[in-house]
Every structure is written in C-alpha cells, then in structure tokens.
C-alpha cells in the first residue's frame, strides 16, 4: 500500500509537469487555434535563462522569476512577429511554423549552452515527507503544490477579471471581439505570453530531475500534447486531469505489470489514449461541438 501511494504521488507529480505544458498548449490553442510544437522549446529556453543567471551568482528564486518574465516576453514576441502572419491561413503552414520555431529555439539554446545535459538546482530539499504514515518525496509534493497554485491563479484570471473575459472572448470569436472593440492583437500576445510563462514554470520544476539540455522537454511535449488532446483541448481542467492520469497510468503499469516494466511503460498511456479517443473523439472533457446553422 505504501509503495502504491508513492507510485501514485510520483505519477501525479510527473503528470503535473506534463499538465502545465499541456495547459500552455491549450491556452495557445484556444487563443490562436493552433498547436504550438515549440511550447517545450520555449520553456527550455526560458529555463536556460534561469540557468545562466544562477551560474552568474543570482539566487535561485530570483533567477526563476526572471525566467518566467522572460518567457512571457518571448511568447508575446513570437506570436506578434512570427506566428501572426500565419494565423487564419493554411493550418498546416501554421503548425509547421511552430515546428520551425522548435528547431530554431533549440538551436539558439544550444548556441549558448551546448547540447550536454547539465545539473540544475532544485527548489526543494531532497528527502521525504510523512503524510498520514506514507512517505512521499518533497519534490513531488512541492511540484504538485506549485502547479496547483499556478492553475488556480489562471482560473481566477480567466473567470473573474476583465482581461480574462476579453481573452476568452478572443479565443471564442476573434472577429466579433474586434467588432466589440477588444484589442485582439494585444490579447493574442498576452495569451501566448501566459502560455510561455506557464511552460517556463514546468521547465524550472523538471530541470533538476532531467538535467537541463536543449532537448530536455522533447519527450514531455509529446505527453503534454497527449494530455491536451485527451482532455479535449478546450478544457483546461481536462488537460490537467488527463496529464495526471497519464502520469499515474504510466507509473502503475511500469511498477505492477511485470511484462511491461520500465521499457514498455511509455506505450501504455498512449495505447489507453487511442482507445479513449476512438470511443470519445471529443476527449474526456471536451464539449461536443454543436453547430447551429
């Protein structure tokens, strides 16, 4: 039982990282209708900013804050300067633009920091915490708590502020929003900025575990995409829950099914996902699109 709970908590923590990235993907998709394959690369680049600052002697927390601010600016900049031209055009071209960004940003990160994985300091002390008689790692608990807070803040932003209302409106129908006087251009930049900031948080949290390198989040991106789509793309809650689900399924399959073990466990959540999507094409939490003519 003790082991089971540890596996589940670790699974949720891993899932929470995917979840943050998935949420970033959902934010961008809602705002601009496209899948940003560069979401991971943007997060890694921002994490590298923190890495560079830490190496220069800046305290960890301050470096993290700067990295998150940098990520926001990077996201807003890329939306305005690169992605904007392709919005509303051919969707394949728009996706390929983000693939181009993925390659380019990875290259820029490598230009400054190389391809070798390097250690990154953790925000949490090593060790475990005793919760109702079960020992779970501080890192897992801390990761979950931070990401939960970030998600609650986002929810508050979207549900109870004017900016959030405007962003939801633009995501829903940009043309009508513009006709109501909403500064669509700026709101799209803010949407990308927020997504990038969220990605940076995920990057900062996972870097101590994976070691930092330009390709650090390549694999997490695939999980995040899976979580975002499984969750139904228009549902932030769905993305997060799906991500946790993927993390836990993978952990349990690896831990308890001998045939699967460590090497095959990756395949399990994806196989499960195929079944779910075939049965429920709109995802676990997505709304069925009702079209009124």
């Amino acid at each position, binding site marked *: 039982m003790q082991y089971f709970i540890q596996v589940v908590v670790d699974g949720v923590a891993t899932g929470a990282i995917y979840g943050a990235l998935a949420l970033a993907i959902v934010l961008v998709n809602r705002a601009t209708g496209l899948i940003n394959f560069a979401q991971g690369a943007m997060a890694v680049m921002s994490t590298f900013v923190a890495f560079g600052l830490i190496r220069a002697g800046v305290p960890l927390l301050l470096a993290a804050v700067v990295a998150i601010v940098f990520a926001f600016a990077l996201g807003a900049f890329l939306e305005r300067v690169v992605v904007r031209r392709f919005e509303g055009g051919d969707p*394949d071209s728009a996706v*390929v633009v983000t693939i181009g*960004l993925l390659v*380019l940003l990875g*290259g820029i990160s490598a230009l400054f920091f190389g391809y070798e994985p390097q250690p990154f300091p953790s925000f949490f002390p090593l060790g475990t915490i005793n919760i109702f008689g079960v020992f779970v790692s501080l890192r897992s608990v801390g990761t979950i708590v931070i990401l939960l807070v970030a998600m609650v803040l986002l929810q508050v932003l979207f549900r109870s502020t004017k900016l959030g209302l405007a962003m939801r409106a633009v995501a829903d*129908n940009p043309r009508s929003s513009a006709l109501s006087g909403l500064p669509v251009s700026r709101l799209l930049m803010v949407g990308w900025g927020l997504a990038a900031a969220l990605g940076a948080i995920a990057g900062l949290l996972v870097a101590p575990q994976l070691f930092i390198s330009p390709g650090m989040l390549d694999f997490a991106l695939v999980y995040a*995409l899976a979580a975002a789509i499984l969750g139904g793309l228009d549902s932030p809650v769905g993305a997060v829950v799906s991500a946790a689900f993927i993390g836990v399924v993978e952990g349990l399959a690896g831990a308890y099914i001998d045939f699967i073990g460590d090497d095959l466990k990756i395949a399990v959540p994806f196989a499960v*996902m195929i079944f779910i999507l075939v049965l429920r094409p709109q995802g676990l939490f997505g709304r069925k*699109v009702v079209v009124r003519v």
Partner: protein
Amino acid sequence: MDKIFANRWLRLAALAVFAVLLIVAPLVSSRFINYQLSMIAVFAVALLGLNIVMGYTGQVSLGQSAFLGLGAYIAAYGVRNEWNLVLVLLLCAIIPAAVGMLVALAAARLRGLALAMITIALPIIGIPLARRFSEFTGGSQGTTVSFLGAPDWSGLANDQWQYYVVLTIAVVAFVLARNLVRGRVGRAFAIVKENESVALAMGVSPYRYKVLAFTISSLLGGVAGFMYLAIVQFTSPETMNFFTSINLVAAMVIGGSASIVGTILGAIYYVLVPVVAGQVNSSRTALISGAILLAVLFLLPRGLVSLPRRMSLLIGGTRRRGASPRDDQNSPDGASTADPGTPETPTAHEERQAR
C-alpha cells in the same frame, strides 16, 4: 509551375533532361553525393505518402516515421533470413499498409487533432516495442544488414547500384501516385479535404477515402523503409523517432502541399538542409535549419513549388500590385477553387477553431 511548363514539348524536354540527369548523376559523382541523392529518393517516397494523406486528403498525420521504421525492420528481418528481395519489398508494402489500414479503420471517424494524436501515438508506442522485441529488431542497438550489392555484370559500385534500385522504386511510386491523384480517387480526396458534408452529399464516403488515403500513405511509408535500409544498411528504434515525423510534415509543407513536384522539392529540402547547415557550421545545424525553415515559410507560404509563380508575380507585379495570389495549384478540376461570384461570403477565419 504551369506557366513555364505550359508548352507540352517544353515540358517533355524538361522531363527528359531531368531523367538523363538522374541516370547520369551517380556515374560521375562521389559516394557521398550518391548517398544524398539516394536518401532524397527514400524520403521522397515517404513524403509522397504523407502528402497523399495530408496534402491531398487534408488529414493530419504525425506518425509517418512509424511506418518508415516498420518497413525498415521488415526488410531487415527478411534480409537476415535470406528471403527473396522482391518478396521482402512486397511485405514491406503490404504489412505497413495493413497496419495503417487497421489504425485508420478505428481512427478515421475522428477529426483534426484527435486523429493527429492517434498518429502521434504510433511512433511513441512503436519505439519501446522495437526495443522490447529485440529478437526481431536487434533492440536498442539496432540491426545492421548487408544486401543489394551490385551484381558483377553491371560493372557498377554498390552505391551506384543501390541508387538505381531505389530510384526505380521511387519512379514507379511517383508515377502510380500521380495517376491516382489526377484521377477519380484524387478528386474524391480533394472533396473530402474541402468539405466532408459536401462529399457525403455527392455520394463520396469520407470515411472510406480517409481509410484509403491512410492505407496508401502507410504503404508508401513502408516502401520508403525498405529503401532506407537498402541505402543505410542499418536501422534502429531511432528511425521511428517522433521528430522524424514532425520534420517530414515540415518538409511536406515546405515543398508544397498537394503537389507531386512539391513532394520532390520537399525531399530535397529534407535531406539537404541539414547537410548544408552542418557544413556551414556543424555545431549550429539546428539553428541554421530552423532559420531556413522559417525563412522559406515567410517568403513562400505555399511552399517551394510556388517559387516560379511567385517570381513571375513579383516581376509582373507592377501591373497588379496588391492582388493576393490565390493559386489553388493542383486542385483537380477546380473542385476546391473559391467562388469569386459571391464576394459577400465571410472568409474562413471564423472557422479556425481547430476541430
């Protein structure tokens, strides 16, 4: 392209020159260049499959590398067991096609991103499976084979012989695919891409044609896998890498979606840009490749295939400046051309919720 090739004789002459170049090139080039040319043929076939499902039929596919890898593994297994090579090639076409069809039968009712996700899952699941079943695949280390050496009577070096073999396969694949997309099936693909409801109303089953497109795409992916093994003589789980799929999608759009010539240009791009970038500065390959990709997209959003048209527009641009080129290249029989008679129709921007 059509303007330049409007003249039938000119078009034939260009084709003949191209053919001669393809035949003579390996005889006068280094092994390195032959290798690159062969790789272009390999990925041209993989891209052709991707273009049929994405470019012509409009269904996102992010799993082409899985079929490439599958084909390569089947070829490697057949070669190690000394099966007849023609049989091996057939199996490399049939088995991936069957797998692709099975996946499509389950997934083709899905749209957009749900479908994309299932295709993403293919390489993700394929790689650990390939590692696990090492008696077939050689596990993580991969498997090395040695086959398709030049026969003595030909007087060719191995690389030249292998080049001709993959070139022949590629030419056959392209001729067949060209006839397919120019014919009845191609029109059906175009209608499915344009509007599934319209397709249904016209008696074209979107489901059936999507399954067909996926099957053909997987078949070509598997054949490309055979060709890949013939040239590289090695395969490993890395052949299936998800990012190979992503880069193939990029190359397809860069070359030109729904275009045969564009597919070839895309393959040239896919193979050569990393090589060129690597020679400019080997530690900056990603940086340069990414910059080139974005630059091409900014200058030619419709892909390299639109370059001649774009240039003629720029040259003749003084006469009709500001006119936006809406060149629906290759849309068969105008099935998808916009109707200029109704300027009040709202633009498609409203429908960009990705679903």
